[in-house]
């Protein structure tokens, strides 16, 4: 209770001090009374009492120290007196708080992003119980992959649903885009296919209406209803009653049956869902049925751990039942030569409390690196403030000396100065937190692109609070401690000196400030160097020649499902459409392709030369293109011919290959006329192709990866033409007028065609966002660090000069020239600078190797290693014959993939 009393007595200090004063005064009086009663004169009595009493100030301090032993009261007192000091020296405080706000704000903003992307758990009941079920090595799987998240086929999922021992519940989901229009400019919503138990397993209760139950999700269910998110409800209905209303998704009508609460965004962090429908609705919403195939890897599975089971046990059990599951889900469409791999696949489970996130995979490393950089900037800020505080403490030497003379203890002085810096850093942290809100939102806006919208949930949670508290405590310690220790060494005699400043300066003090300056220079050099590396790397990526000319090329994604053109007439329709586009004013060339290079889409198959053993198979990337594709992209033809209108489904299959293809397959000089086999795929048997053309190499999967072998097939010979297509259009007009012209042309063909546009160059630049983020922010931090270090150096030097005014005066009186003095001062700063630079250079080399993974075209490493490193995170998803369609490719509903 004593503590409570102390807390309650906070702020009553003045009254308590008065009481102590009165008590001691009365004591003295009684003593004097007694003395006089014993016959002393009044003066004698008073002198004797005072002698016995000792130093009254010390006694009062000690007594009142007892009254607030825990120190709450005295801390409050320190804070109040510090506040008074700061109000008096407003300029100083503003500078300190502003500097800190910048440093802390930058750190907090990046931490917030990191927190939202990496650390926060899913907003569902007991997220730590959630496990993700996945195939151990998906690279051996064949078929179509709809996501870069781990996925299984619907057949495998159905087996898991039937038997999920170890899970108290299990659910499957897939994010997808549904179109909301019937033709013209495409509008999409973020859709979610969910299994019947999904919301139950997640523990999400409806805000209104109902969520799906197991009964909703059964084969042949049609479109039993849609559950919409709170965000979508607000955006589309403005919060008005929505239950029972009809929505149009992919030209089908569906009734809204429920709304989820505001905090539930789905399972993929950074990608909020708008509308969820049961998995069984897939065949109704899309042209291809994914439910019955063993080669469509599209459902991600998430389960809730049964109490009493460990993750290890569940994973082990999944491993044991895997052979049975895969044996029973094999279908005839699975390529025969890969059946052995399929049967050997294993399932496993791993914790998934934080959900899955493409953002996490792309940005977690850059964000961690940036947090490190921001930490260094904060360190420089602290060093700067430390020397500022030191200078101030020195200026306050007299004030401190008086306190010492009055009986203030060493700890008391340390606390005084530390209290001041704590107050400053808390103010800085608060201002920084406010700044961080704006900064982190700016960062998200920066990363947000039209094709990859990001929605992140920033909340002021305990983690952020702990971060802020930690950072302000740390900074106050860092920049206040030196000054505090310095203050505690104040000699009481210092106050007695008539002149507070001696003629020369003790070396020790400058020494420490010198260390501060040196470290500032060193760190800022490191930051500048890293910034330069990143900028250079980004520049390398941007000017890197992918082998084709992306500028001036428009990507038009077309969907003509509504026209219901039979498969055999689609190729002809596409040819006519292409001719219409080509004759549009401003258009110089146009071509169709099913894979846009550097878009993230990919398709690869094994190939071998006709007549060679199939053991000499090689992997090659593929692309189906129309005539004029190479012209449109300005890919030089080395030999042979382009595709032409004579290449039809009736004529022999032809192919154009690039030089890397010819080299990898050992074709030598006789490329044209050679024949190669493409392995069997789920949709077609092995095919023999005649090489009719040879083109230069181009990049396919990403700017960072070197150009590899590509085989181009003729779209016209594709007997499985989809009802959607990507058209590459080179135009002489700027992008916007070109888009307008093409929009008119398409509208003239049919109002039922749905389309959206993107610039090829824009798309490539958007794929470099992580690099751009690193370059921009590290540049910003580098500049900030440089400014801080320079002001730090200037501050220390000018302080030294002021401090040495007397000494300099004497030197000049003794005949020193201006130049001597200047040389002396300059010499000092040059030494500091040089030491810092040398140290920084050493550190920079270390930093560069840490940053190596993010760099492009800067390290003298062999390309294979680089490619390997860049490829590693993705290779798991590119296996087999795949159209790995990422977020971007998903724009076309119903065209999730084709093979």
């Amino acid at each position: 209770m004593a503590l409570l009393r102390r807390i309650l007595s906070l702020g009553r200090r003045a009254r308590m001090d008065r009481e102590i004063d009165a008590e001691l005064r009365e004591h003295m009086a009684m003593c004097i009374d007694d003395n006089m009663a014993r016959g002393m004169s009044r003066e004698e009595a008073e002198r004797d009492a005072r002698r016995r009493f000792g130093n009254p100030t010390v006694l009062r301090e000690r007594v009142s120290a007892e009254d607030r032993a825990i120190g709450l009261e005295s801390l409050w007192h320190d804070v109040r007196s510090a506040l008074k000091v700061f109000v008096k020296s407003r300029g100083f405080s503003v500078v300190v708080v502003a500097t800190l706000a910048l440093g802390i704000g930058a750190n907090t903003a990046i931490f917030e992003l990191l927190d939202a992307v990496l650390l926060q758990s899913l907003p569902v009941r007991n997220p730590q119980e959630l496990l993700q079920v996945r195939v151990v090595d998906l690279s051996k799987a064949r078929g179509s992959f709809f996501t870069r998240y781990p996925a299984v086929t619907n057949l495998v999922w159905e087996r898991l649903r039937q038997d999920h021992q170890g899970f108290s519940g299990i659910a499957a989901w897939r994010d997808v885009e549904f179109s909301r229009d019937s033709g013209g400019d495409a509008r999409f919503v973020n859709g979610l296919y969910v299994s019947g138990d999904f919301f139950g397993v997640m523990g999400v209760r409806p805000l209104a209406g109902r969520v799906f139950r197991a009964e909703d999700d059964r084969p042949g269910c049609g479109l039993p209803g849609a559950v919409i998110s709170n965000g979508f409800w607000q955006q589309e209905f403005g919060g008005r009653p929505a239950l029972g209303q009809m929505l149009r998704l992919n030209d089908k009508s569906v009734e809204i049956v429920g709304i989820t609460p505001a905090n539930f965004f789905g399972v993929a962090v950074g990608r909020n869902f708008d509308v969820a429908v049961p998995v069984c609705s897939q065949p109704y919403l899309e042209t291809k049925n994914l439910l019955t195939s063993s080669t469509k890897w599209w459902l991600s599975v998430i389960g809730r751990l049964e109490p009493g089971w460990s993750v290890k046990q569940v994973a082990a059990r999944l491993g044991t039942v895997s052979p049975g599951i895969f044996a029973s889900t094999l279908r005839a469409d699975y390529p025969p030569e890969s059946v052995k791999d399929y049967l050997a696949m294993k399932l496993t489970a791993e914790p998934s409390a934080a959900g899955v996130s493409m953002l996490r995979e792309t940005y977690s490393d850059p964000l961690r690196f940036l947090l490190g950089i921001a930490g260094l900037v904060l360190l420089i800020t602290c060093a700067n403030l430390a020397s500022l505080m030191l200078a101030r403490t020195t200026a306050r030497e007299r004030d401190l000396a008086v306190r010492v003379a009055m009986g203030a203890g060493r700890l008391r002085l340390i606390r005084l100065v530390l209290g001041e810096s704590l107050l400053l850093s808390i103010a800085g942290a608060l201002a920084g937190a406010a700044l961080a809100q704006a900064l982190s939102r700016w960062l998200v806006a920066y990363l947000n692109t039209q094709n990859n919208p990001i929605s992140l949930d920033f909340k002021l949670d305990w983690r952020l609070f702990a971060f802020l508290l930690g950072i302000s405590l740390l900074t106050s310690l860092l920049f206040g401690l030196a000054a505090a220790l310095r203050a505690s060494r104040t000699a009481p005699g210092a106050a007695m000196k008539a002149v507070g400043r001696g003629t020369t300066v003790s070396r020790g003090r400058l020494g420490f400030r010198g260390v501060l300056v040196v470290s500032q220079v060193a760190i800022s050099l490191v930051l500048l160097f890293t910034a330069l590396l990143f900028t250079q790397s980004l520049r390398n990526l941007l000017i890197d020649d992918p082998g084709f000319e992306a500028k001036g090329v428009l990507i038009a994604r077309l969907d003509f499902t509504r026209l219901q053109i039979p498969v055999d007439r689609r190729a002809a329709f596409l040819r006519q459409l292409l001719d219409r586009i080509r004759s549009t004013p401003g258009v110089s060339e146009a071509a169709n392709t099913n894979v846009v290079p550097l878009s993230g889409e990919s398709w690869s198959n094994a190939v071998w030369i006709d007549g060679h053993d199939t053991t000499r198979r090689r992997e090659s990337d593929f692309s189906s293109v129309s005539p004029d594709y190479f012209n449109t992209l300005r890919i030089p033809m080395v030999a042979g011919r382009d595709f032409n209108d004579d290449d039809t489904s009736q004529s022999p299959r032809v192919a154009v290959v690039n030089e890397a293809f010819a080299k990898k397959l050992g074709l030598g000089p006789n490329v044209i006329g050679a024949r190669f086999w493409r392995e069997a795929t789920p949709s077609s048997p092995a095919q023999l192709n005649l090489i009719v053309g040879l083109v230069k190499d181009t990049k396919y999967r990403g700017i960072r990866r070197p150009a590899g072998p590509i085989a181009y097939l003729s779209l016209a010979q594709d007997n499985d033409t989809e009802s959607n297509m990507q058209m590459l259009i080179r135009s002489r007009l700027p992008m916007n007028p070109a888009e307008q012209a093409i929009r008119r042309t398409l509208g003239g063909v049919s109002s039922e065609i749905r389309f959206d546009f993107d610039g090829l160059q824009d798309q490539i630049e958007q794929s470099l966002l992580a690099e751009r983020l690193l370059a921009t922010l590290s540049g910003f931090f580098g500049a900030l660090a440089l400014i801080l270090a320079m002001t730090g150096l200037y501050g220390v030097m000018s302080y030294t000069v002021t401090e040495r005014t007397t000494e300099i005066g004497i030197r000049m009186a003794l005949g020193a020239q201006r130049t001597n003095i200047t040389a002396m001062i300059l010499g000092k700063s040059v030494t500091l600078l040089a030491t810092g630079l040398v140290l920084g250079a050493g550190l920079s080399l270390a930093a560069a190797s840490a940053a190596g993974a993010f760099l492009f075209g800067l390290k003298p490493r062999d390309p294979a290693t680089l490619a390997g490193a860049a490829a590693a995170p993705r290779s798991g998803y590119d296996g087999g014959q795949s159209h790995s369609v990422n977020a971007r490719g998903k724009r076309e509903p119903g065209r999730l993939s084709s093979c």
Partner: protein
Amino acid sequence: MAKNDLQGALDLLILKTLSQLDAMHGYGIMMHIRRVTDELLIVEEGSLYPALHRMEQNGWVSASWAVTDYGRKAKWYALTRAGREQLASREKNWAQVVKGVDAILHFA
């Protein structure tokens, strides 16, 4: 083993004095100890007041302002229940300290 050893002696003196005098101000406590011990023990203001205030914070003594016999206003201290318990345990401890020190002194 006796805890609070010799340093607790001041607390013990003050607590015992207060138990003997019911309530007393600081100066009175000082003079009482001085008189009773025949000036063998002199408690100084520099120790007395911090100790009194600490005891007050600990809830061993309660304090109130009242007028002395000589018409001066003073802060009077009195034992609380916790203070009496404290005194009892300190007395017991002290007896053991004395016994222990005695044993050392008389070791032959």
